[in-house]
């Protein structure tokens, strides 16, 4: 179970929270506007009434302790920068996701220690551009991966003693065995970069490699289960 603290309750955070699996994530919503906090409570989210400007209050809800991820979703950039800075000082390992309103603030948020910056306007603009340029591919992704159809992206880390250890990529045959498509592999120890599978057929898998796969959720679950099972045969 992962713990997420969401600062700022608005359309964006509502959408993000409702996309997260309630069984895997423990979510706490914090907003200094009492009306918004009440709305969040009404929608069934756990809320906390604290002042984000105070480090003690932040510690109180578990930053620096059990909180793994922090969403800085306040409407103003200055508040997000302040919160990011305070949280980063409390916890070096915290995963901080922040939204940005004006593009100049993105650099400030990175400097303050955010891991991921989300610019809704930029994303939206890029998305519309994509709709114009490649309507068919965009439609597929909207309806499947980002939509309601059962087709998902997933990442599977190869654990120790897995049957996949030292296997060749070409031996995997995910598409015939599981109805999954392997898109790429990331080796975290070397770099964050994704190696697309089309160019890596003769590569050997090692422990810690992350496979990025696409397919229906049932198949993903089956594959994940088999990966962890050391007695499974290719």
């Amino acid at each position, binding site marked *: 179970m992962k713990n997420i603290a969401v600062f700022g309750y608005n359309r964006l955070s509502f959408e993000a929270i409702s996309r997260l699996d309630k069984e895997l994530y423990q979510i706490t919503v914090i907003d200094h506007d009492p009306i918004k906090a009440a709305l969040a409570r009404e929608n069934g989210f756990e809320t906390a009434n604290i002042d984000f400007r105070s480090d003690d209050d932040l510690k109180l809800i578990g930053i620096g302790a059990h909180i793994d991820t922090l969403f800085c979703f306040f409407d103003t950039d200055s508040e997000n920068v302040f919160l990011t800075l305070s949280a980063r000082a409390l916890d070096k390992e915290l995963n901080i996701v922040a939204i940005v309103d004006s593009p100049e603030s993105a650099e400030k948020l990175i400097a303050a220690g955010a891991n991921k910056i989300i610019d809704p306007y930029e994303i939206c603009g890029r*998305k519309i551009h994509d709709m114009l340029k490649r309507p*068919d591919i965009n439609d597929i992704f909207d309806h499947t991966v980002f939509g309601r159809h059962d087709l998902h992206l997933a990442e599977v880390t190869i654990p120790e003693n897995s049957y996949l250890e030292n296997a060749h990529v070409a031996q995997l045959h995910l598409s015939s065995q599981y109805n999954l498509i392997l898109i790429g592999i990331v080796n975290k120890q070397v770099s964050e970069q994704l190696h697309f599978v089309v160019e890596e057929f003769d590569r050997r898998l090692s422990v810690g490699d992350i496979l990025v796969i696409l397919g229906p959720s049932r198949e993903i679950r089956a594959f994940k289960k088999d990966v962890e099972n050391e007695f499974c045969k290719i």
Partner: protein
Amino acid sequence: MLAKLIVYCAYYLKSADWYRKAKLFFYDLLENSHSRKKKYFDATMIGLLILSVIFLIYDIEHEDSKMGGYFELAILMVFIVEYCLRGWIYSDTYKVIIEEYEKALYLNLDFNLLGVFRKAFVRDMEYISSPFAIIDILAILPSYRPLAILRIFIIFRLFKLFRYSNSAKLFADALASKRFELMTLLIFTCFLVFIASVSIYMFEYQALGSGIHNLFDAFYWTIVTLATVGFGDITPQTTGGRWVTIFLILASLGVLSFFTSILIAAFSEKMLSVCETRTYAELDRYDSFIIICGFGRVGQEIARHLHNDRQKFLIIDRVPARIELAKKRGYLAIESDASNNEVLINAGICRGASAILCITGDDVINVYVTLTSRHLNKNLRIISRANRHDNVNKLYQAGADNVIRPFEIAGLLAAEFVGQPVAFEAISGILHNQTETVMESVLVSEKSPLDNQQIGQLDLQQRKLTLLGVISDNPIHLKHKNKYQVKQQHFYFNPEVDFILRHGDMLVLLGRKYGIDHFRDQVEQRRLFSRKPK
């Protein structure tokens, strides 16, 4: 008998294809401001006009030059033909004849040929008395020898320039828009001139050494002084005359500054529409472009991408500061309200626009612009932005093809990022072309070597391509599993090796950009090659 022949001719012309085509051709050439032919024609005419005036000036010094005479004749012919053609396009006499004939037939009256001619004549007179036609005739008449006295009027030909250039028209329009102010000023100036002329005449007429000997001298002096020119050839000699001068100089300062301010106001008001006209004129040259309504953050982002793609687009926004920003970045932009039908029509929504993006921050405006655009053009692609979830359906109802919700997409990405950061970065990299690997679709066209081929035979692995699936609306594929409905089509995810492709299908491939391009080129080459022997 004659009447019958005329009616027969009228019907013949109505049904004649060549006649219609000829008329359309000349309409495009002379009147249709959107046609390219007219632009070339106008440029030629302007050249001819200037040449003819140059010859006129040359003739003044060299009276017996022959070349000038021939050239003059040629130009004259062109002008006469142009004048007649315009008259021909202006009126459709055969239509008048048919209309009258059918009316007579219906009411069981005699067909009155004279009445018809009268009507046709009235219509012709309408053309002849229009301002441009008068200018045209003034450009022709001075060349007629018996009217040699009119030769000076050849300079009137330059007025014809008005016909061929929009800027001159704009100048006239600017002045016309201030008609009331200018009229007031003119009346006041007339009074001033009258009073000043009469008073200086009264004081100076008999004065010693005065230059004013009659009323015209007084009038001349008044105008020279009023215009602040003051040659000094006539100066007031009496005290009374000097008082009149002081009064006139002070008043003329007011008149002149008032006149200048009217002109400046008129032009600065017109400036906006001058810019707009220029923007529209530039748009006219493009066959396909995108209209962006709203140049906020989203609009700026899209414009940046489209600009990089060298795709043409037009920005419409109501906020002057944003338009200024757009122009600074070198984009085509109009400061206007996109919910106005006229603005959208001028922007070419029915002509060259391939898509319109309604992406302002206000849902009310987005819905309204969507509705207006759909009403104006049924086939246009409309992408709208919904800032509130409740308005998504309204936008679809208004006729949007796609509705996008910025905050929800961002929220979704945030959630994806938390759950699966690696997969998220991978897919967003592919989708946004940030990596060398891209996702693209390849169409199976008719007679393509891919048609009727099994997926297993494509040898995609050798080409370093990954097939994600096939998009198709062909019902023949419906028996396959893993299908996902996407609009009117199906997406067949991870198709089996024995999946047979049909024309119209689209392969969704993942691979290096040049790998996919190469594959596409090969397929296309083989298709063309296989067709040649036939």
